[in-house]
């Protein structure tokens, strides 16, 4: 739906001029917003360096407030940038604007559970991005920060003032472990889902476009992937390739092209999990993309667009893709939750993050022997972190689904 153009516009040339002026205006505002947020960021960086403490030990309360203030500054800068950019983007490109996204957003805002989910996810992202500022102790996964003399005196401590959530069996602060662990969970969830949905989109559109035996072959592959007991496959894949060093050498050279030990060492041993999950998680996106494209491609509006003279690119990007995009967004959001769960389960079984790495599943794995003792808090807190974040992703995904497609409302 188009917004009425200002009254003084009389001819096509006027309109073009107006758009050009607004584009110029938009560029100026974006530059301003960028400069403004850059100033805030620089200020925040300097401020955080002033109040930084590198040694291992309980943080001063004032230092912590400083850091939280810095994080708030960053978030504010980002928010201002987003807001200005959105407003001017909206005004400049009003010509092409459709109302769908705004309607979706309005429906989404009305849904309380979905808003709660969004809040949880935003908090989680902020915590993950600013982990180095928010954690009361330095990165526990780095051996540089590990002081054995201090740690040995603080093994498996219950929650106290110096360690708000207690310490784990290595004497590391549990709150810091959880805060840095959120990075692993989020990074793994996002990267797996993005890769998997890319595979799903490519396979799905190829199957829908070519049809015939290509379609049949891809369907059989999809059936195999879906019938495979998911967790078992990941366990086999990870355990097979993790322990043993083997490499493929190119003949006559010293170049090693495949080195499993090095690949496993990437991301604290989570790279193999990433590969396994990305290879197995695409079937949801594949099915949705395939069926949507098959049904949308035959619809009248595509025909109408073609009749009006739209080229293939316009049809794909303006008419087919937006119809496929919304279920993919929902699937990705819900998929991140399941990836986080799977990572935790694998780490619990001992096939996940490597020794010394910080991850929520790993923390439960390390605390599992204490479940029958009085130190059950060692398992309790990491679990709460997992539950809350999965709750966030699930309710966000459900809310998005309801907002995108109000007819599907349950």
């Amino acid at each position, binding site marked *: 739906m188009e917004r009425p153009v200002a009254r003084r516009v009389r001819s096509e040339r006027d309109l073009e001029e107006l758009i050009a002026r607004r584009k110029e205006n938009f560029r100026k505002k974006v530059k301003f917003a960028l400069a403004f947020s850059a100033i805030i960021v620089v200020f925040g960086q300097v401020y955080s360096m002033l109040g930084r403490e590198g040694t291992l030990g309980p943080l001063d309360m004032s230092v912590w407030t400083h850091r939280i203030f810095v994080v708030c500054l960053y978030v504010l800068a980002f928010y201002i940038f987003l807001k200005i950019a959105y407003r001017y983007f909206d005004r400049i490109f009003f010509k092409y604007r459709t109302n769908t996204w705004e309607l979706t957003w309005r429906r989404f805002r009305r849904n309380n559970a979905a808003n709660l989910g969004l809040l949880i996810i935003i908090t989680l992202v902020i915590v993950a991005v600013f982990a180095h500022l928010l954690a009361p102790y330095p990165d526990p996964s780095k051996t540089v920060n590990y002081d054995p003399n201090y740690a040995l005196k603080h093994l498996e401590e219950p929650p106290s003032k110096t360690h708000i959530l207690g310490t784990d069996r290595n004497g590391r602060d549990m709150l810091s472990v959880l805060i840095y662990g959120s990075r692993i969970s989020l990074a793994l969830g996002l990267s797996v889902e993005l890769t998997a949905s890319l595979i799903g989109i490519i396979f799905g559109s190829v199957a829908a476009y070519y049809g015939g035996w290509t379609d049949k072959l891809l369907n059989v592959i999809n059936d195999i992937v879906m019938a495979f007991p998911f967790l078992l496959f990941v366990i086999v894949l990870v355990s097979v390739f993790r322990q043993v060093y083997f490499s493929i050498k190119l003949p006559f050279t010293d170049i090693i092209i495949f080195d499993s030990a090095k690949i496993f060492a990437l991301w604290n041993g989570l790279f193999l999990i990433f590969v396994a999950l990305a290879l197995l998680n695409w079937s949801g996106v594949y099915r949705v993309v395939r069926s949507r494209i098959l049904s949308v491609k035959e619809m009248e509006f595509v025909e109408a667009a073609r009749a009006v003279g739209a080229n293939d690119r316009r049809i794909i990007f303006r008419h087919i893709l937006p119809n496929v995009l919304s279920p993919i967004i929902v699937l990705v959001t819900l998929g991140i939750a399941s990836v986080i769960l799977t990572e935790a389960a694998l780490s619990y*079984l001992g096939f996940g993050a490597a020794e010394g790495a910080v991850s929520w599943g790993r923390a439960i794995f390390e605390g599992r022997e204490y479940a*029958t003792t009085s130190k059950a808090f060692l398992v309790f807190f990491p679990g709460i972190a997992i539950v809350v974040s999965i709750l966030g992703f699930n309710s966000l995904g459900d809310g998005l689904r309801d907002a995108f497609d109000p007819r599907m409302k349950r």
Partner: protein
Amino acid sequence: MREYILKKIGLMFVVLMGVYTIVFALCVAAPGDPARIALGRADNPLARQILREKWGLDKPVIQQYFQTLKSMITLDFPQSFRYRENVGDLILSRLPRTFFLGVIAIGVSILIAIPAGIVSAYKHNSIIDNITMVASQIGVAVPNFWLGLMLIVVFYTKLHWFQIGAPEHLLSLEGLSKVALPAITLGTGMAAVTARLTRSSMLEVIREEYIMTARAKGLSERVVILKHAFRNALLPVVTVIGLQFPLVVGGAVITEQVFGWYGLGQLYIRSIAARDYPVIVTTTLLFTIGVVVTNLVVDILYTYIDPRVKYEKVK
């Protein structure tokens, strides 16, 4: 219909072959030598050579592939590397436990989910409804193994209500006491999904006109809800209970590990550590057959529960 089923069964074999090939390829590509792991400290080249010959690992890969395939088809299973037992006997000795756990877990989930779903649909948008829905959201979000650990903390360490571990006999007081916590752990996750589905399916049915007719006839509310509404709302519920079978498989692996329940899942994990290929291949195939067959049965059940569903010839 018949054609459809035959086609599905044909596809099933293709899928099974695919899964078998992948698992076999993974086992072959795995760099660890099972003979060395089995020998442990007694490892020496001669003994290793003898073991490898005995297990047929010295033959070419293609020959191994078809030999294992043949033994799977004729149900003449090879020997396990780790347990020095026939794989068939080994799995048969563990299968009842996993099956027992799975059945009780599904029972628990149905017992929780269906009443909860019906009540929350009947009292739509009430406090009970909201509580049920929040509980089901949390139920989906809680990791299985963590819930198990928390149940151990509360009901075993603190309250001493139940025992944990593997029982001698399944159908005894001890067996029931020991299966309770794992079954609740596995069951609640499934119950959360089933309850939501029961609710939404009931909500759809309750709005239909024949429910109004049934009420107008003067039938009691119980008969209206249970006989008229619930029966028609059953179809998607049955489907989802059937489709949860893979969940039981995956969940059982973790839950058995948490509770020391000596079933198939734990056998699987230990076999992987020992590179016990016959067990890995056979167990994976068994689980896959379970998943595929359940899907097929659910497909066929669909037409019997709801005669409106028909499978057209797919072009």
